[in-house]
C-alpha cells in the first residue's frame, strides 16, 4: 500500500540522510590533518559575547579581551608589573603648582605681599638653598583674571518641601598667581612652603575673590572656584614614530588628544569618564609628544593610559558626520557610540579585525605591519559558548585551544598529558561585609569573633578545592601594597565565644547568644548564580549557628541584590567580592565620605586614620612612600575588621600542550621556548610569539 510504504520509508530515509553526514565532518584526529591552516589559528572560548569593540566605551571582559589585541595604549605593564612604554617611548612626570597672591597679608619679614614681592622673596630663599624649594625648577608670576560662572545652588522649596536647584551667577576675580614648576610631584609642597611663609597659605580667604548677587558664596564654594593652592601634575609623553593603524594611517599625538576628548564627551556615555575626569588638558607638542595636565593630585590616573588609543581620522567630527549621512541618520546626533567603528575597529595592535558574527564568534587576523613585527599566529578566533560544560567538551574535541578549569577539575586535568596548565592568583578577593550602622556590628570584638568562628582554610580546601589563598587585607597579594606581615585571624571558635562574652553576649536557656534580653541574630545575603558564595554563606551560617548565633540566609538576583539592598545600605551582613586593579587607591571603597546610597563604602566604615592615609596615598607619586603608606593602611583596616577578609581565588588555565613560543635566532632558524607566567600569573605576555606545532616539541613541565 502506497501510504504504508511512505510511512515506513519516510523516517528511514530522513534518519539515514542525517546520520551519514557524520562521515563528512572533521573529527579530533582528522582536524589537524585535513585542515593544516588549523595550526596557525588560535581559538578561545568565552561565555559572553563582546559588546563594543571600542576600548573607551566597553565595560565587559569579552570586549576587553578583543580590544587588548586590536588596540594599544600609551603604556602597559611589563613582565614584573612596572610600567613600560608601548605607543609612548618614554615619559616624564612632574608638577605645576599654583599659589594665589593675597595682597591683604604680609610676609614674615614684615613687607606687604605683592606679586613681585612674593616672587623675589621665594627666589631668594631658593638661591639660599631652602629645603622647602629644593624641587622647584622655575617660578613665574601669572596675571590675575576675571571670569563669570554659573553655580548650582539648592534652596529650600516653598510649597513642595523638596530643595529647588537653580543657577546663580558668580564673578570670580582671581588675583595674580605664582606658578611653580617642580621636578617631582610633592603633595606636601605647600605645607612645607607655608612654614617658610609663616602660615600665609592657610590664612588666604577665598571668599574675597568670589562675589555674587545673592549670599550663596560659602567658604567651600569659594575654595572650589578660587583655590588658594592648586597642584597640577603633568605627564609628558614622548611617542614612538612610524606606528601604523591597520588601515595604514600613521599614529600621532592628535590621536591621543582625540581619545581623551571622545571619552569626556557626554554624548558618548563612556564608562571611563571617572578615570579621566581628573585630567585638565591633553595638549600635543608637535606630532610625537603629548603633555597631559591634571586638575589635582591623582596618582592612579597615570595607569589609565594603558587604555587603547583611538584613530582620530576615523572618528572625528567630520568622519562621524560623513558616516551619519551615508547611513541616513541625523549628523548632529550621531556620536562615537553610534558609529559602525564599534563593530569594525581599527587600531595599531598586533591583530586586526576581520569578522564578527554576533553571539557566535569574532575573528581577528595577523597585522603584518605591527611595530614589533607580525605575530606568529595568522588568526585569532574568539568563540562564544555560554555553557561551561559545553565549552569544556569543545576543548576535549579539539575545537578550542584553551580552557579555564573549575577548581574541582584541577587535579584531574593537571595530570592529563595532553594539556599544559598554568595557575594564577586572582586580583580580587571575597569577603563578608558587616553593616556598621547596625548596633550589633558596631563592636569590633563582635566582628572579630564572627571572623574567628569561620574556618577559612576549610573553605579554601574544600569549596575551592585548594585553589585559593587566604587574604588579610584590601590589596591584591601580588602587589607591593599588600603587607605580608599581617597575620590572618586564627580559626578559634572558643576564642570567639570568649570575645563575645567580653562584649556582653551570653548563652541563654535555649543555647542562643543574647545580651540585655536581645538575641544575636541577623541575615546574611548574597547574590544568586555564584556557587562559591552560596557555599560560603552556608558554611558561615553553620559555623555561627554552632556559636549560638541565629543567622538567616538569603540569595537575591544580582540586580535586586545590588540596587535594592546593598546600594541602599539595607542589609546586615553580605558575602561579596571586589575585583581590584593594580593601583593603591581604595578611597571609594573605604573612605568615610563614600557611605551614601549607591556609593561603594556600603558597610559604612569610618576611621579617621585610614581616611587620612587613603587621601595621601592617592596623591603620592613617589613609589616608595606610596607603598609604605599602603602597607600601613592594610594594617589599620585588618585591625578594624569591617570585613572578614576571606580568600583570593586561584584560577587554572589549560592549553593544548602543542602550543609553545617560537622565536627566530640570528641564523633565522626557529627556537621553541615554553610559555611562562608573568608576575600576575598571566600567560599572554608573549602572545605574539605563540605557535601550535603538529606534535609536542617541548618536554613536559
Amino acid at each position, binding site marked *: 500500500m502506497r501510504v504504508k510504504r511512505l510511512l515506513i520509508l519516510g523516517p528511514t530515509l530522513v534518519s539515514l540522510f542525517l546520520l551519514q553526514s557524520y562521515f563528512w565532518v572533521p573529527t579530533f584526529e582528522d582536524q589537524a590533518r585535513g585542515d593544516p591552516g588549523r595550526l596557525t589559528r588560535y581559538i578561545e572560548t568565552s561565555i559572553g559575547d563582546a559588546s563594543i569593540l571600542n576600548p573607551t566605551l566597553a565595560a565587559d571582559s569579552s570586549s576587553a579581551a578583543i580590544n587588548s589585541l586590536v588596540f594599544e595604549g600609551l603604556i602597559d605593564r611589563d613582565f614584573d608589573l612596572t610600567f613600560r612604554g608601548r605607543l609612548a617611548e618614554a615619559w616624564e612626570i612632574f608638577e605645576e603648582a599654583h599659589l594665589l597672591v593675597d595682597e591683604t597679608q604680609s610676609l614674615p619679614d614684615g613687607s606687604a605681599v605683592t606679586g613681585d614681592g612674593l616672587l623675589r622673596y621665594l627666589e631668594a630663599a631658593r638661591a639660599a638653598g631652602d629645603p622647602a624649594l629644593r624641587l622647584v625648577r622655575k617660578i613665574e608670576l601669572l596675571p590675575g583674571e576675571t571670569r563669570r560662572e554659573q553655580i548650582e545652588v539648592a534652596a529650600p522649596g516653598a510649597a513642595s518641601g523638596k530643595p529647588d536647584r537653580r543657577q546663580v551667577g558668580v564673578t570670580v576675580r582671581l588675583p595674580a598667581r605664582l606658578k611653580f614648576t617642580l621636578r617631582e610631584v610633592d603633595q606636601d609642597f605647600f605645607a612645607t612652603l607655608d612654614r617658610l611663609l609663616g602660615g600665609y597659605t592657610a590664612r588666604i580667604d577665598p571668599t574675597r575673590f568670589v562675589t555674587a548677587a545673592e549670599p550663596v558664596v560659602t567658604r567651600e564654594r569659594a575654595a572650589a572656584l578660587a583655590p588658594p593652592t592648586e597642584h597640577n601634575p603633568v605627564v609628558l609623553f614622548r611617542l614612538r614614530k612610524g606606528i601604523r593603524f591597520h588601515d595604514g594611517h600613521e599614529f600621532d599625538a592628535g590621536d591621543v588628544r582625540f581619545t581623551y576628548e571622545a571619552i569626556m564627551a557626554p554624548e558618548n556615555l563612556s564608562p571611563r569618564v571617572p578615570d579621566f575626569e581628573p585630567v585638565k588638558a591633553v595638549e600635543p607638542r608637535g606630532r610625537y609628544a603629548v603633555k597631559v595636565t591634571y586638575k589635582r593630585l591623582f596618582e592612579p590616573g597615570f595607569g589609565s593610559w594603558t587604555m587603547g588609543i583611538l584613530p582620530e581620522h576615523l572618528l572625528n567630527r567630520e568622519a562621524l558626520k560623513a558616516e551619519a549621512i551615508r547611513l541616513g541618520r541625523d549628523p548632529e546626533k550621531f556620536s562615537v557610540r553610534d558609529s559602525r567603528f564599534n563593530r569594525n575597529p581599527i587600531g595599531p595592535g598586533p591583530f586586526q579585525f576581520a569578522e564578527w558574527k554576533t553571539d557566535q564568534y569574532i575573528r581577528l587576523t595577523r597585522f603584518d605591519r605591527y611595530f614589533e613585527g607580525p605575530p606568529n599566529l595568522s588568526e585569532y578566533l574568539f568563540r562564544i559558548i555560554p555553557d561551561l*560544560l559545553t565549552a569544556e567538551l569543545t576543548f576535549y574535541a579539539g575545537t578550542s585551544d584553551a580552557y579555564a578549569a573549575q577548581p574541582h577539575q584541577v587535579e*584531574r586535568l593537571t595530570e592529563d598529558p595532553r594539556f599544559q596548565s598554568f595557575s594564577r592568583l586572582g586580583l580580587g578577593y571575597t569577603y563578608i561585609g558587616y553593616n556598621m550602622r547596625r548596633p550589633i556590628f558596631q563592636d569590633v570584638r563582635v566582628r572579630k569573633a564572627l571572623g574567628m568562628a569561620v574556618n577559612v582554610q576549610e573553605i579554601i580546601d*574544600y*569549596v575551592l578545592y585548594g585553589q585559593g589563598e587566604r587574604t588579610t587585607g584590601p590589596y591584591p597579594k601580588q602587589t607591593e601594597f599588600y603587607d605580608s606581615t599581617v597575620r590572618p585571624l586564627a580559626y578559634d571558635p572558643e576564642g570567639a565565644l570568649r570575645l563575645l562574652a567580653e562584649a556582653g553576649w551570653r548563652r541563654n536557656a535555649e543555647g542562643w547568644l543574647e545580651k540585655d534580653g536581645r538575641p544575636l541574630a541577623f541575615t546574611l545575603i548574597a547574590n*544568586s548564580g555564584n*556557587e562559591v558564595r552560596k557555599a560560603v554563606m*552556608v558554611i558561615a551560617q553553620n559555623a555561627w549557628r554552632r556559636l549560638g548565633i541565629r543567622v538567616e540566609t538569603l*540569595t537575591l538576583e544580582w540586580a*535586586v541584590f545590588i540596587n535594592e539592598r546593598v546600594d541602599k545600605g539595607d542589609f546586615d551582613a553580605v558575602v561579596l567580592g571586589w575585583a581590584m586593579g593594580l593601583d593603591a587607591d581604595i578611597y571609594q571603597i573605604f573612605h568615610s565620605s563614600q557611605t551614601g546610597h549607591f556609593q561603594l563604602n556600603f558597610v559604612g566604615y569610618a576611621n579617621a586614620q585610614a581616611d587620612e592615609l587613603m587621601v595621601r596615598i592617592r596623591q603620592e607619586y613617589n613609589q616608595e612612600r606610596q607603598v609604605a603608606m599602603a602597607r600601613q593602611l592594610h594594617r589599620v583596616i585588618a585591625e578594624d575588621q569591617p570585613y572578614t577578609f576571606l580568600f583570593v581565588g586561584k584560577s587554572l588555565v589549560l592549553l593544548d600542550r602543542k602550543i609553545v613560543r617560537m622565536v627566530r635566532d640570528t641564523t633565522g632558524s626557529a627556537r621553541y621556548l615554553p610559555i611562562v607566567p608573568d608576575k600576575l600569573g598571566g600567560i599572554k605576555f608573549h602572545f605574539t610569539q605563540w605557535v601550535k606545532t603538529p606534535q609536542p616539541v617541548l618536554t613536559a613541565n
Partner: protein
Amino acid sequence: MGRHTARETRPRDATVSPARLAWRSFLRNRTAVAGMLACTLFFVLALCGLVLTKGDHPILDPRQVRLVDKFRPPLSLPTPRAVAPEALPRLGIYPLGTDELGRDVFARMLEGAFVSLSVGFVAVGIAVIIGIALGGIAGYYGRARLGFGTVRLMTVDTLITGLIDVALSFPSFFLILTVVAILRPSIWNIMVVIGLTSWEGTARFVRAEILALREQDFIQAAHALGVPGPRVIVRHLIPNAVAPVLVSATLGIAGAILTESGLSFLGFGVPPPDATWGNILSDGKNFLFDASWLTIIPGTAILVVVLAFNLFGEGLREAFNPRLRQL
C-alpha cells in the same frame, strides 16, 4: 483483531455508571496502572520525606554540611575521625552518596520529593481552580451580556474565551522565565507563576463539557425545579465535567515538575537551601565527569515520577473517552 466484536454493549451494563465503566477500562491498561501505582508510591515517599527531614533537628538531615566528606559515592561510609559526631548521618552510611558540600543526597532527595510534589500540586491546583471557575462561568453564563446602561459590549463567553486566547498566545515558558526573573526567587512565586500560565487547557475543556451538558435533560429538570444557578454549576455540572480536569491535572503535575527543573537549570529555580529534584540535578551537572551520581540519581528520579504521572494521565484520558474504551 477480534476484539471489536466484544464492543456490543451488553444489556446489563446499561445500569453500570460511566465511572465504573471507565475504571474497568482503565484497569485493563497495564502501563497506566503501573503509572498509578508509581504515583501513589511517590506520594507516600514525599510525605515520608516531609516527616523525616523537617524541622531544626530532623531525623535525616539534608542540610548538614560536612566538607570533609564531599563527593562520596553512593553506599560509602563516613570518615569517623574527621566528621563531628552530631554531624554523622543517622543511618551510618550514605545510601546515595554526598554532594559538593558533603550533604547527604538521600536526605536531600527525600526533602526534594516533597517540595517537587508540592510545586506540582499547588501549581496545578491553582491552574485547575482558575480553569474550572472561568470555564464554568463561560459555559453556564456564557450568553449573559456585559455592558453599562443600554450599551452592550460583549457576552461573558466572548470575554472569557478572549482571555483564554490572550493567555494562550503568550509562549508560556518564555513568559514564566520573564516573570520568575523579575520577582523575588522563592518557591511560592514559582508555583503561582506556573499555575497562572497553565489554566487555559482546563478552562477550555470545562467550558466545552458544560456547554454540552447544559442542554441535557437533567439540567433542564433542575431549572424547572428552581435550583439556583451556582448550585446547578457546583452540584450537577462540575462533577460531570470532572473527567477532562482530572486528566489535565495529572498531566499538569508532570509538566510542572519538568518546568521547575528547567527553571533550575537556567538559574531561576527554587533558591537554596531548599532542595528540589530540579535544583539537585542542575547543581550536579557541574560535576558530570567527577561525581556522576549527582546527576544520574535525580535525573532518573524525575524521569520515573514524571513518566508515572504521564502514563497515569494518559490512561485516564483513554479510559474516559468512550470511543476509545475497551470492555
